[in-house]
Structure formats: C-alpha cells, structure tokens
C-alpha cells in the first residue's frame, strides 16, 4: 500500500514584522517596520503509512503547527513536495477536503451561540453526507465520545472538555481518512485527556484512519503513537519507534531492585548513582553502556528479590534530544 502522507524537503519561511517594547519603539514602528525571516520549517521529509498513528513532537515554535497547516492545505510551502492521499493539499480540492480533517485545540468551527447539532447539520450539507451515513456517524461518535445531551446545548454553555469533544465530532462527521490533530487535549483535565486519547485510539482501530498528532502531553503520545517524529527549529531530529528514542538519546537507565531485606548503604558503593534507598527498595541510575555490568553486580552482591531496568521518563528523553540539538 502506498503511504497516505508523503513529505519531501518541506520548507516554510515567513517574514514577520518586529517591534520592540515601549513607547519609542512603537512610535518608530509607525514609520518604519523591521522585518525578520522565520524559518518555521526548514527541510523535513517523512512518510506515514495508512492506519498509522504518528506523534509529532517538538517544543513551542518548532514548526509542528506550521507543518500540519501545510499538510492540511492551509499553507503553501516555500519549497518541497507534499502528497496526501494522492492530492497536493494546498489545491484544496473538494475530494481532498472530504478525506481529511484538521482539528486544532482552540480553533472554533462551531457556532458559538447555537447547539452543536446545528453546526453538524451545516457540515452535513457542506460535505454532502447522506442521511443514513450521517445518522450512523453521529450515533457512533455520540457513543464513543459520550456526547449525549451535549448536542442540544448552545456551545458557549459547554465546558472546555465538552467543547473539545464536540469539536472533534464535528471534524469527523464526514469520515475523514487522515486526521491532523493539533494539541487535541490542551487545557483539559486528566480524565478528559484520557477519554479523548481512548477515543482517538478506538477511532483509529475501527476506521483504520491515519493520524498525525501533536501534543504537549507525553502521555498522549505514549498512549497513542508507536512512532514519533521529533522536530526542533524546523528540522527533523528523529523519526522512528517511540522506544527507540530512549535507546538513542537517553544516556542512562534506571535500575530498581527489591531486596529480600534492607542492606547497609555502604554495600551499594560502586554501583552507580543511588537515586533513592527506601527500606528494601533501591533505585540506581547508571550510564546506559554500563547497565548490563551494574545489573550483574547487583545480582551477584545483593539478595535481590526483583529487578527492573527502565528508560528514564519520556519527557526527560525529549528534553535530552532538544538540549543535544541546541549545543
């Protein structure tokens, strides 16, 4: 099967006006405006296969949103080739738009003062969804997202989380094959984040849709994506399996051992950095290449009941990636 998304050498540069703070700077900007070139995306390439869920990671301003806007057709790239489902996105052909969706955390596509159901009707007509399909889709989305009762209340009366669910549903009514999700869980509480996550996973499993998602929350990525693409300052730093990220970038591992009885701290000397020792549980941090040796020593020298070797938390790994890129 050919990939759903194909990006080759994507570059997007902007020219933005610049203005200093204070009265003088703003007065000066009345007469003369300084401009600055922003390299939002600076040559990235990747492919996404049908049905894949890919996490798109990067710090603020890394170029994630810009990339999603190019991929969904809102922005015209400066250079590069993009192919989504065989279409060039920025032509925004009707056939293309009917097969994709872009959902942005705070972007309103719903009528604020009307019940979401009314906005759904508009999308039904605009996308030419026929009655039976529409009813079935709304039914499915209502069940998966627990929308009962939300579609008849004016959108402005919904909570942030409820609004996000309804927004998601509105973006999925036309049964898109490719989903671009930009920070779908931003600002939501933990329970609601989990619910949205579970929904995306189920939607992907049931429809086989391709998902490209950005998120600040590593939990989103961990729960959904097998594969991540990491970009920073418009450049691609990593593209591959999520667990491979830690293997490649995390310089150390964390070893946790449960002992049969507590031991004297002196006995732990020479086993790497002791992160904590509480009763019979000891946590040790060690350089990755030394991990096998340290594990062996632990097993040999101490009465070990249970032992686990883990990569550090994803947040820490990602930070390591960016730090490495910037020095």
């Amino acid at each position, binding site marked *: 099967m050919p990939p759903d998304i194909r990006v080759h050498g994507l570059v997007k540069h902007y020219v933005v006006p610049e203005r200093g703070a204070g009265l003088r700077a703003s007065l000066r900007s009345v007469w003369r405006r300084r401009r600055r070139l922003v390299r939002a995306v600076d040559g990235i390439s990747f492919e996404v296969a049908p049905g894949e869920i890919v996490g798109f990671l990067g710090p603020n301003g890394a170029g994630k949103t810009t990339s999603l*806007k190019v991929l969904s057709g*809102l922005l015209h790239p400066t250079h590069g080739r993009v192919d989504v489902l065989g279409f060039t996105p920025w032509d925004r052909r009707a056939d293309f738009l009917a097969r994709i969706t872009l959902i942005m955390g705070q972007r309103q596509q719903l009528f604020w003062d009307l019940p979401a159901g*009314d906005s759904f009707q*508009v*999308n039904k007509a*605009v996308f*030419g969804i026929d009655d039976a399909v529409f009813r079935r889709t709304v039914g499915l989305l209502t069940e998966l997202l627990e929308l009962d009762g939300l579609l008849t209340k004016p959108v402005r009366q919904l909570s942030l989380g409820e609004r996000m669910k309804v927004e998601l549903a509105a973006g999925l009514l036309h049964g898109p094959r490719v989903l671009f999700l930009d920070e779908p869980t931003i600002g939501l509480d933990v329970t609601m984040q989990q619910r949205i996550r579970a929904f995306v996973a189920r939607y992907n499993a049931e429809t086989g849709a391709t998902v490209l998602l950005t998120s600040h929350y590593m939990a989103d990525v961990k729960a959904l994506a097998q594969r991540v693409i990491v970009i920073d300052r418009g450049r691609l730093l990593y593209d591959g399996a999520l667990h491979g990220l830690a293997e490649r970038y995390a310089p150390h591992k964390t070893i946790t051992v449960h002992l049969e009885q507590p031991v004297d701290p002196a006995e732990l000397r020479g086993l790497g950095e002791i992160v904590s020792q509480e009763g019979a549980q000891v946590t040790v941090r060690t350089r990755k290449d030394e991990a096998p040796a340290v594990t062996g020593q632990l097993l040999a020298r101490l009465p070990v009941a249970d032992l686990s070797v883990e990569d550090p938390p994803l947040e820490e790994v990602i930070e390591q990636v960016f730090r490495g890129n910037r020095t």
Partner: protein
Amino acid sequence: MTFRLGLAGPLAMLRAEMADMLQYRVVVFLYALWGFIHPIVYMAVWSAVAGEGDVGGLRQSDFTAYYLTFMIVSHLTVAIEIYTFGPMIQYGRLSPHLLRPMHPVWVAAARNLSYKAVAVLLLIPIWTALFLVLRPEFGATPASIALFMLSLAGAVLLSFLAGTGFALLAFWTTRSGSSWEIWMGLTFLLGGQVAPVELLPGVMGQLAAALPMRYTLGFPIEVLLNRLPPGEVALGLALQAGWVAAAAVIVALVWRAGIRHYEAVGA
C-alpha cells in the same frame, strides 16, 4: 480550489446563520434602527427646504416617499462584510472554512442575508407606522415596481460585492475600515442619501450617474418613484449590470490574491 456544486451547503449555512442572528436580535435591531435615522434627518431637512413649494420639482410629499423608500432600500443593500467577513480573515477564523468544500464567500452571504431578514421582521412595524402617519404618495406604476425589483436586486448584489471586496483587504492590512469609510462617505454624498441624485448640482450629478454608489442605493428608489425617463432607466440598468460584473471580477481577483497571501503567511 474546487467546490461541490449545489446549494445544499449554502442553504444549511443560511439556516444556521439565521438561528444565530436571532440570538442577537436586540443588537441587530439597534443596528438596523441606525439605518432609519439618516433618512428621517434628510426627510426633515428637505421638507423644511421645500416648505409649501418645491425643490427642483420635488414637493414635500415626494421627499417623504423618497426617504421612506430609502429606508427599505438602504436596509436591504447595507453591506456588513467589513464587520463580519473582515474580522474572520484578520483573526484567522477563515481556516476552518477553507477546509470545507464550500466557498467561504457563502458564509459572508449567509450572514448578510440573515442579518437583513432578522432585522426586517422588526423594522416592518416601525415602517408601517411611519407610512400610516406620513401617508406618502409614491406615484409608482406596475412597470416601475417591476423595474424597481430588478434594480433592487442589482443594488443588493452590487453592495454585497463592494462590502466583500473591502472586507478582503483584511488579508493585507489590520484595519480595512478606513477605505470602507471613504466608500461610505461617497455613498452618502453621491449615492442618493444626502439628496436624491437629481438634486445634486453640476459635476456632482454627473459623477453620481457614472460612479457605482448610486447603483447600490439611490437608483432603485428613483426607478420606483418614476423620477426617470425610460431612456435613463435603461441606461441606469445597463450601468448597474456593468458595475456588478466589474465588481464580481475584482472581488474574484482580490480573493485569489488574498488567499495566496494567506497561504504564504498563515494566520
């Protein structure tokens, strides 16, 4: 950009916009009332000037008829795009509409129509009361009514295109309002608002006949009240059609350039 044919989308949009507008009926009413105040002022001014006599062949009752018709025509030809479509572009709210297979101009059109439809419900009683109090003589004939309908349709279309054209400037500048105010100022002076175009002295009258403003406002009123000889009605309709076509081309070109700009800088 290609779009599905068919009006199902625009019609659904219109329904939703109508429901949305009804939520704001009080504000809508205030805005619409605003359109009644100018004709009342100028009806008073010209009635005072005419006194018991006439001004260039127009008597008090003619001014009453003119400005009462004006109230309806100006309401139906008001362009609100600079306040609806413009901000949508400026604040990046255009994006969701670009990702739907329907031209966003339909959103502007739906909002325009729903504003007029909602406000008209509230304006009709006021207008009827004014009509009953002032008892104007319209001097309209079946033919002039038919031609009025035609020229009114042209005026509605032309004013919508003009409003959309100026609103599209929001692609480039944060405040497209200034240029719109110039247009509105010219409409005030030359469009038949400060006075029926036939009363404009000298070069102003000639300018008014040539420029598009009259064809968004004053022309249909003149047609209805039978103030124009048949030749001038025909010429006016032709000029109006010409301006509609020109405006449509300009708006299409500006839209295309604007979208290219939007795609380049994002929002």
